């Protein structure tokens, strides 16, 4: 078979709409976020880890989580980057606007971390361990976008 041989390419646009259930734990989190600009985690009765995002079960102890605790709105950067690569956003089918700051944030009082946006795109100004604070939107609708981004705090 010839390696140079080229065959036809047929274009196709996958375009589907999904309906994701946020679940009972997500409902509680997003209700608090929308109505009170408050961030909540769920604590394991055994290992006392506080999970954000909250969920029904601690995967480590395999215990049900029933206790809710407030976390944040300040936290610490665990990992970060500034996304510069151009790529197609699967949520729109269009190029996602870049650059944007992207961090894994450990909210105060939480044991796990959350993916979210940073308000900074200058790599020289961001570091692991830096303190950040959630900036909430004025008009909230009950989604993670109710947090506009995390703002770097002055040292």
């Amino acid at each position, binding site marked *: *078979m010839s390696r140079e*041989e080229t*065959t*036809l*390419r*047929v*274009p*196709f*646009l*996958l*375009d*589907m*709409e*999904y*309906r*994701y*259930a*946020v679940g*009972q734990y*997500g*409902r509680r989190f*997003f209700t608090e976020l929308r109505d009170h600009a408050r961030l909540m985690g769920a604590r394991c009765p055994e290992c006392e880890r506080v999970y954000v995002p909250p969920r029904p079960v601690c995967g480590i102890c395999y215990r049900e989580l029933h206790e809710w605790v407030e976390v944040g709105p300040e936290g610490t950067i665990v990992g970060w980057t500034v996304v510069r690569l151009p790529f*197609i956003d*699967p*949520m*729109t*089918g269009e190029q996602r606007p870049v650059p944007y700051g992207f961090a894994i944030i450990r909210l105060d009082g939480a044991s796990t971390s959350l993916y979210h946006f940073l308000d900074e795109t200058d790599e020289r100004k961001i570091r692991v361990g830096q303190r950040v604070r959630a900036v909430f939107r004025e008009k909230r609708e*009950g*989604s993670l976008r109710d947090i506009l981004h995390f703002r770097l705090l002055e040292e």
Partner: protein
Amino acid sequence: MSEWIVRQKIRIPFHYTTGRALTRFLTGLAECRLWATRCGECARVYVPPRSFCGRCWREITEWRELPAEGELMSYTVRPADPPLILGLIRLDGADTALVHRLGEVKLEELERVVRVRAVWREDRTGSILDIAYFAPAR
């Protein structure tokens, strides 16, 4: 409890590589020709053609041109205005069947249709839709 749903899209563009056999098939459609391949071992004639017989596990190299006419094996109707009629068509000389649209036929006549022929589009591009539809052969 009431539902809490997040609606979200997944939109991704793709390009499928058609491969050796399908490339010849699609190129042929642009010229109003229907190409099939025939396995040298089991003698099955494949449409759409393929370069490999999975049953015999051997490469297929023999090409055959088939007439643009065949037998309507089965059909289904999607209610719409006008209704969308899909047929399963076995071209004469083929062992496998193609799915395509049916046209020039009334719903109440479908039961009696046995033979169909390809109706070609004027502006052909090397696509399965170069066949506009299959119509009853009269």
